[in-house]
């Protein structure tokens, strides 16, 4: 069993508390991603699991056993660092053999395991090179090899891909998830990159300011964000938020009064809705969908466009604020013409004043 159980864990550096009593269950055989903006405590949490930081309060259990006072090696964790932390004066072979040497394994066994791991990671030709003679991706693989050679129960990754270029990052991402499937290993992966999180994770833990905002599968956190922070953090470009002044319900549904006084008609929404969110890809130009907003010529202004080839994003300035939307490349938005946008009310996310998600009554 290598389930990680985090119960009421806090971390204080001197007087500043950076993690405020977190409860989390990291399931065996899953790849869990800790995601959050920098300074949210995700790395600190990882380092507490690893045993590199003391736990100020609370309990961490690995496989049911409390590990608060155990040395890192006794916890059965291996870690891949952001800068790889390869020993610069040792060859790849000796780097990978180091954990086994510390474990006092016989020399023949070390050689056998190094060879097997090198084969798995396609490092065989590089075994006698020094880390400085390797490319970024190769160093990354050596670091992973050094982590997995001890056959740990849990792999910890601290932003391992952020030093790589974009193309390599995609390849290493695939490689990590292939390894995870092959080894059926429990992995905890820290990143601030949501694409990495969405593509790699079985389960995403979104953190902010030392607290967990939401735990869920990638699609769960994308489709049903628990609060406004998660909704804005997941997805690129970010979700559009529209402040709501008032919600009036009648027989046909809810009428929302927006910040600028205009009205939006949508299906039944909770009465305490303070803002609504809509993803850029759910907005259409024209009146194709049920909920719609119209703007006279001069009321709307285009403040930018991003053409990514397969899709194009438009940035609009509207009376109630700015809006990002996905639109076909050939779509022309003319500021001297009236503009109508519409979306399916079912795609709207409703948030209360404190940012909490409001569930819609089942229609």
């Amino acid at each position, binding site marked *: 069993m290598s389930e990680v159980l985090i119960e009421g864990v806090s971390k204080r550096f001197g007087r500043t508390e950076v993690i405020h009593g977190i409860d989390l269950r990291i399931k065996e055989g899953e790849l869990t991603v800790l995601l959050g903006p920098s300074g949210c405590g995700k790395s600190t949490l990882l380092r507490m699991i690893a045993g*590199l930081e003391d736990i100020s309060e609370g309990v961490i259990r690995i496989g049911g056993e409390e590990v608060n006072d155990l040395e890192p090696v006794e916890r059965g964790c291996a*870690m891949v660092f952001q*800068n790889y932390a390869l*020993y610069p004066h040792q060859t790849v072979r000796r780097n990978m053999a180091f*954990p086994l040497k510390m474990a006092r394994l016989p020399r023949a066994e070390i050689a056998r395991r190094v060879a097997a791991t090198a084969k798995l990671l396609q490092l065989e030709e590089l075994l006698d090179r020094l880390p400085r003679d390797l490319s970024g991706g190769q160093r990354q693989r050596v670091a992973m090899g050094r982590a997995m050679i001890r056959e740990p129960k849990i792999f910890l990754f601290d932003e391992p891909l952020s030093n790589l270029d974009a193309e390599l990052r995609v390849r290493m991402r695939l490689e990590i998830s292939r390894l995870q499937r092959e080894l059926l290993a429990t992995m905890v992966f820290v990143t601030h990159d949501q694409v990495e999180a969405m593509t790699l994770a079985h389960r995403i833990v979104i953190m902010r300011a030392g607290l967990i905002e939401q735990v869920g599968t990638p699609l769960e956190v994308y489709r049903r964000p628990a609060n406004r922070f998660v909704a804005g953090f997941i997805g690129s470009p970010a979700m559009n938020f529209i402040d709501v002044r008032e919600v009036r319900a009648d027989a046909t549904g809810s009428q929302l009064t927006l910040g600028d006084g205009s009205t939006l008609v949508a299906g039944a929404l909770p009465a305490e809705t303070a803002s609504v969110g809509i993803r850029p890809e759910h907005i259409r130009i024209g009146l194709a969908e049920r909920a719609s907003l119209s703007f006279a010529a001069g009321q709307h202004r285009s403040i930018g466009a991003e053409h990514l080839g397969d899709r194009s994003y438009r940035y609009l300035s509207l009376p109630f604020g700015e809006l990002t939307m996905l639109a076909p490349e050939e779509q022309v938005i003319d500021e001297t013409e009236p503009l109508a946008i519409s979306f399916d009310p079912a795609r709207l996310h409703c948030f209360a004043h404190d940012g909490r998600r409001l569930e819609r009554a089942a229609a």
Partner: protein
Amino acid sequence: MKRHQLVLVGLLGLYCLITLAPFYALVVRAFTPTVQSTEFHLWLPDRRPLSMNARLGDLATIYSIDARAFRQEMGIKGYVNPQLTLAQLAETYELEPERIRAWLEPRVQYNGVLSVMEAGFLRSLLATIFVTGVSVGVGGLLGIMTGSALAGFRRPWHLFTYNLYMLNMIIPPMMVILPQYLIMTKVLGLDDNYLSVILIHIKGGALSTMVFTSYIATIPKELRESVQMDGGRHYHYFFYVLLPLMGTPFAVFASIAMPWMWNDLLHPLVFLSPAKYTLPAFVAAIGGTYTTNYEAIFSGLMLSLIPILLIYLVFQKMFVRSAVAGAVKG
């Protein structure tokens, strides 16, 4: 080559010549007889033959020649009148003048080098190598240990300790020589012992602390954590990771501290007896009692410079190589 490159090479060449000129002067001086030492020589002066009219006493005084060794070599028993000239000596003791010349002439013509050798240069050289080697080695190791503890100044008292080491630099060695002498002899009982000079060299260690603390601070802390994750203790980190990475700072430390230790005159002079003098004290002592044998002094200086120059050149190469390796960290 472009013109400005030529000018640059020319200037650099000139600079090299200016730098090397004192060494050249030293070599010339090492072979200039003391009687000509007030004259200016650009090239080694001609060796003048030994005059048989020279008096034995004068030769012994000026050229530091051991009159007793001469008597034994010539088989003369008893007192020899130092006022006798060599010709008179040959006559009085029925010696072949050629035999006297054969023994005395090289000692006069190559007086400097030979008297340095006879006064125990090699023993003194070995003592210097021992003292400097142990001082640099142990001092470097202590510096690495201090540096690895202080690097990064993680606690307020780290900086305080570091500053204490730095403060050590402003204490003039002359001012504390007496208390140091008393501690060495009365408390530690290191009377006339090389260990006393070594201890003086490695004490404090402002330079080594500075060099190693700042270098170790540049080593990512992840290396330490990685060792920890791999099940290593702190001493594993120290011996397997930290020490092998200390080549560059050690070369920096050694190339600065070693010449200073090698050329230390004051401490050996105070703490050691003449039989144990290291090179600078040894050279200062071979000048003679009633006259000053400049040829011997300059020869001693030249000979004591050669080993440190060789060591320095080797270290310089290492220093440059490791500095370049660190610069293009990829």
